[in-house]
């Protein structure tokens, strides 16, 4: 009640994927950025890539998402490669996140930060559909000064959070979609969702947020991942 779980990013993404927020066949992206954001000092920006939140599933005939470990593993590799390539063109150095020792104080601090980001990003996503009156025409979200420890630890200027959910219809599901069309019912097929947030590590402000949702594209292939990452990062303000 004090902290409703419905606003977590993952939950919203499930709803998006379940077809509640209908999207056209082509990929749609939706960029939000902080109005008064000015990039940090000249020189290549150092971007810390936070742990990837990626899950690929198979959509069974019954409409259940069956997670696929093999596809997810491949997709994560593709995402890292595609990110490095996309940011190279943007005068940016990508730094990988080195996880602190298990059960250490540092690990707890990082966990809190990841959970806070998840909650804030979920709220941003919800607001992009139905904005609170206090948030209309504003983009002023933050994770607070707790991010400064990351700035020092990783010697980075920004942190980049990436999330992907993707599902592919199984053979049975495709058959069901065809049958549904025959009897006039719409059976949602697989859907892709991705989001990216860029956090300024000087003070924790989320300076840019983008999400894309598409019924096309297959994150199991490096080409599709490159396309998805490129459209996700098009207007990255670096």
């Amino acid at each position, binding site marked *: 009640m004090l902290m409703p779980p419905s606003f977590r990013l993952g939950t919203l993404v499930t*709803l998006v994927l*379940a*077809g*509640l927020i209908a999207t056209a066949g082509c990929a749609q992206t939706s960029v939000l950025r902080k109005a008064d954001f000015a990039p940090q000092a000249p020189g290549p920006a150092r971007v810390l890539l936070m742990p990837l939140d990626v*899950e690929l*599933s*198979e959509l*069974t*005939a*019954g*409409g*259940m*998402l*069956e*997670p*696929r*470990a*093999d596809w*997810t*593993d491949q997709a994560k590799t593709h995402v890292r490669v595609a990110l490095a390539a996309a940011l190279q063109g943007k005068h940016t150095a990508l730094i990988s996140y080195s996880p602190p020792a298990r059960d250490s104080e540092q690990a*707890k601090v990082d*966990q809190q930060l990841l*959970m806070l980001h998840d909650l804030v990003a979920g709220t941003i996503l919800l607001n992009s559909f139905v904005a609170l009156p206090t948030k209309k025409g504003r983009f002023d979200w933050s994770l607070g000064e707790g991010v400064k420890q990351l700035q020092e630890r990783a010697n980075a200027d920004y942190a980049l959070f990436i999330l992907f959910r993707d599902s592919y219809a*199984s*053979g*049975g599901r495709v*058959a*069901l979609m065809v*049958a*549904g069309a*025959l*009897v*006039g*019912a*719409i*059976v*949602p097929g697989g859907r892709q969702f991705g989001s990216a947030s860029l956090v300024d590590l000087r003070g924790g402000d989320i300076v840019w947020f983008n999400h894309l949702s598409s019924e096309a594209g297959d994150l199991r292939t490096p080409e599709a991942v490159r396309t998805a990452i490129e459209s996700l990062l098009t207007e990255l303000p670096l």
Partner: protein
Amino acid sequence: MSLARTGVLVALLLSTTACAAQRGSPGALPDIQPGRRPDLETEEAGLWMQTDRLEADLKTSGALVADSALNAYVRNIVCRLAEAYCADIRIYILRVPYFNASMMPNGVMQVWTGLILRVDNEAQLAYVLGHELGHYLRRHSIQRWRDVRAKSAFLEFSGLLTAPTGFGPLASLGAQLALVGSIFAFSRDNEREADELGFGLAVKAGYDPREASKVWEALVEERDATKDSAPFIFFATHPAPEERIENLKAFAKKSALDGGHAIIGREQFLAQTRPLRTMLLRDELRRREFTGSQVVLDRLFEAGTGLGELYFFQGELYRLRDNEGDREKTTAAYQKALEYGDAPVETHRALGLLFFKTGEKEKARLAFERYLQQRVNAEDREMIEAYLRQLE
């Protein structure tokens, strides 16, 4: 419905069944091997991946009981049962006041504190944990997943047969959520199998076979007292407890072990769990399920450890229940608690509040003053001092 439409659906239904068969169909599987992770391209790996994510959530969960002694104790019992599989099992003790333990396919074992409050000794705990290990070894989750998947395909097809409506996506989302919730609820056959396997593990580890059925007998007593089976998650999908008790008793009879030499482990169990009991009893009363909680308290009284604390919580139960005549019972229980050395300091505050309400000013003042004397750093000192001023 037209013949063509029915025909198409029937044809599709058949094709799905065939398709599901490619990635494994419902039915028995060989037992899991120690130290093994499923191959990446299998559906089992997919389930592991998802349960790995759930595990990451568990690691940070607010409900996690951090007490390292208790964790080590439970781990030790599990390892005695699991032997070669010991290293594959990760135990998470969660602060949830209901009787439950569960096992995920990737080796995550959840133990709820409501279970710890409801068993008498190490042997009883071991039989429940053994049952969970049974699910793990037999890979019941993956069987269950295949089962659910086959069923859910059928559900959506029958949804198409009955007129499709504009709420299609919403309805299927609801159905999906409901199905996901039941993924780890095993079939009754799976439960029977886990009972037998778990029993064997615990007997082999030297635990008294006669303790196995007692856990369920206690649960039946609690269920019958409350006349409400809703909180008994274990009963929802498990075989009728009466049947299970009979089975376990039959196993115990057959078991070659001489009960006289077998481990019951009451002292060790008490030593390990007693420090947490105050917290568990507090959580128990939060359920506001007084009839069931009374059965739990009665069993603890019978065991006879820490009577001062038990009488205090007996008073708390009466106070919160607030039935006709409970006020007198509350006072009596708090006063009884104070006859024992281990009554919590809060007993004085509780008595003070009681007398404060009934206008017995002198008694209230005495009780509040005792509370403040014994709890010098009371975090509600300002409030208690305010009550004392009102009493003047």
